[in-house]
C-alpha cells in the first residue's frame, strides 16, 4: 500500500462486492453476466488531491465501481465513505446529494444535444438552484479552463469528440466537486485530443481536486507516472505510486 500518511483519506471503498444475478439484469449485456462476480471485495482508499488511475482489461469491473460510487448501481456488499460519510446509506431519493459532491466524466460525454455548450455546463449549477449571476460568472471560468470559451454558443453536434469531452469536464467541475471521477474519458476520442484531456485533468489536480480515472489506455498511464491501481477478475492485484500500466 502507498505511503500517504501526510494526506487525508477522501474516498474509501470497503470490501465492495458486486455479483450480477438475474434480477439485477437490466439489458441483454447484463443477462450475459448472470451470477457473475464482477467486483470481489474491493477495498481501496483515495487521498485528497491525488491523481489515481484505475486500470484493467475490459470487463475488469472499473466502470462498475464508478457506477456504484455514484449510486447508479447498488453493490451486493460493502461500504463506501466519501469524506467520512457513508455514500450507500443515503436514501435513494437523496442520491443527488452524493452526485453533487462527485464530478463525473463519462466515456460517451453525456451532453444535452438540444443545449449549447454554455447551457450544458450551466445545468450542473442550475440543478442546485444557483442564481443566474453566479452561473454567468462560473461557467465562463470553467470553459476558459478547458479552452472552450470561444465555443460557448455552439451545440454539441458542432464539436469534435475531444471538445465534447472538455465540455463534460467543465460541467463536472462547475459545482466544485470534492472529487472528479473520469470513466474512460479518452475512450472515444483520438490520441491527440486524449493528450489535451489529460493536460486538463492534471491542471484539475493542481487546483486541489482529487482525480480518479479509469482507463485501459496503456500509453496514457505509462506517460503520466501517477498512482496506478490495477483490477483483474474483480480484485485489486496491484496498487503502486508512479506506476506503469503493467506493473
Amino acid at each position, binding site marked *: 500500500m502507498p505511503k500517504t500518511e501526510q494526506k487525508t483519506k477522501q474516498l474509501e471503498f470497503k470490501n465492495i462486492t458486486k455479483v450480477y444475478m438475474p434480477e439485477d439484469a437490466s439489458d441483454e449485456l447484463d443477462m450475459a453476466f448472470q451470477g457473475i462476480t464482477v467486483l470481489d471485495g474491493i477495498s481501496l482508499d483515495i487521498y485528497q488531491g491525488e491523481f489515481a488511475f484505475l486500470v484493467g482489461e475490459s470487463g475488469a469491473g472499473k466502470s462498475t465501481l464508478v457506477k456504484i460510487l*455514484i*449510486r*447508479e448501481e447498488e453493490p451486493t456488499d460493502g461500504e463506501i465513505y466519501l469524506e467520512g460519510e457513508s455514500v450507500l446509506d443515503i436514501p*435513494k*431519493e437523496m*442520491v*443527488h*446529494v452524493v*452526485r*453533487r459532491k462527485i464530478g*463525473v466524466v*463519462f466515456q460517451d460525454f*453525456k*451532453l*444535452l444535444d*438540444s443545449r449549447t455548450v454554455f447551457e450544458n455546463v450551466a*445545468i*450542473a449549477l442550475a*440543478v*442546485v438552484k444557483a442564481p443566474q449571476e453566479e452561473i454567468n460568472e462560473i461557467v465562463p471560468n470553467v470553459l476558459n479552463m478547458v479552452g472552450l470559451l470561444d465555443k460557448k454558443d455552439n451545440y454539441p453536434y458542432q464539436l469534435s469528440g475531444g471538445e465534447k469531452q472538455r465540455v463534460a469536464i467543465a*460541467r*463536472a467541475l462547475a*459545482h466544485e466537486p470534492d472529487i472528479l471521477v473520469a470513466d474512460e474519458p479518452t475512450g472515444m476520442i483520438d490520441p491527440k485530443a486524449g493528450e489535451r484531456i489529460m493536460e486538463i485533468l492534471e491542471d484539475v489536480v493542481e487546483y486541489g481536486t482529487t482525480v480518479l480515472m479509469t482507463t485501459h489506455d496503456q500509453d496514457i498511464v505509462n506517460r503520466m507516472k501517477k498512482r496506478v491501481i490495477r483490477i483483474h477478475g474483480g480484485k485489486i492485484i496491484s496498487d503502486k505510486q508512479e506506476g506503469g500500466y503493467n506493473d
Partner: protein
Amino acid sequence: MINFKNAYETMKKERVLSFSNLLVMTITFLVLGVFLLVVFLSQSTLAYLEQQTQVTAFFRDDFTEERILQLQAELQADERISNVEYISKEEALQIFTEINKDEPLLVESISANILPASLKIQTRKIEDLKIIAEEIAPREGVEGVKFFEDVVSQFQKLANVLYIAGFILTAVFLFISYSAIVITLRTYINRKGTELEILKLVGASNDYVQAPIISQGLFFSLTSSIFATVLLLLGAVVATLLGVFDSGLLVPFTTGFRINLIALNLIFGIILLASGILLGYLGSKSTVKKYLNY
C-alpha cells in the same frame, strides 16, 4: 415547482406533437363534457316525466267538496305523497274546454255536472304510485282511480338503466382521459429520456427532474380542459339563443329546482377543469415515476 411558462416554451419547440396531443385530449374532455350533459339531460327528462305521472282519483257526485278536501289534507300528510291537487267539477270543465277547443260541438254538449271532481296525487317515488292507487280505490266516495301502470314501470326501468349506464360510461371516459394524458407524457418522456438521465447523473433532485414533466402534463390537461369548457359554453350560449330549454332544466333528485343551460355547462366546465388538474397530476406523476427508480 410547477412552471407553465417552460411547459409552454417546450410545447412551442415541438409544435406538431404538442398540437396533436392537445387535440386528442381536448376531444376527450369535450366528449366527457358532452356525455355528462347527455346523462344530466336524460335524468332531468326522467325527473320531469316522473313529476307528470300521477294517480287520479275520481269522486262520486254525492261526495261533497268538503269531504274531498278533508281527504286531500289527509293524503297531503302522507310522507309518500309530494302533492295533492283538487280539481273541482268547474275546473274540470275548464280543462276539458281547453283541451277540446277545436271541437266546439263536443264542448257544447258537456256541462260541469257530467264531469267528476278529482284529486291528482303525485308521489315522491314512482314505485309508490300503484300502492297509493290501491289504497285510495276502496275509500268512501271514490268512484274510480286511474294511473298509467305500464308507463310508470317502463320509466322506472329506463331510469335504472340510465343511472347505471351513466356511472359506468362516465368512469370509462375518465379512464380514457387519464390514458390519453399518460400516453402523451410517455411520448414526451421517451423523447426526453436521455436528457432526464443526464440531469440525474449531474445531481438533479427528483423534484427537479419531475417538475417539468408534471408541469407539461398539467399544462396539456388544463389547456385541453379549458378548450373543452369553452366549446361547451359556446354550445350552451347558442342553444339558449335558439330558445332550447329556455325554461331551464329540471335538476334530478330535487323538488322542482331548475337550472339554466349556461349555468349547467359552467358547472360541467368546472368539473372538467378539476378533472384536468387531477388527471394531469396523477398521469404525469405515474409516468415520471419510472425515471426516478435508480
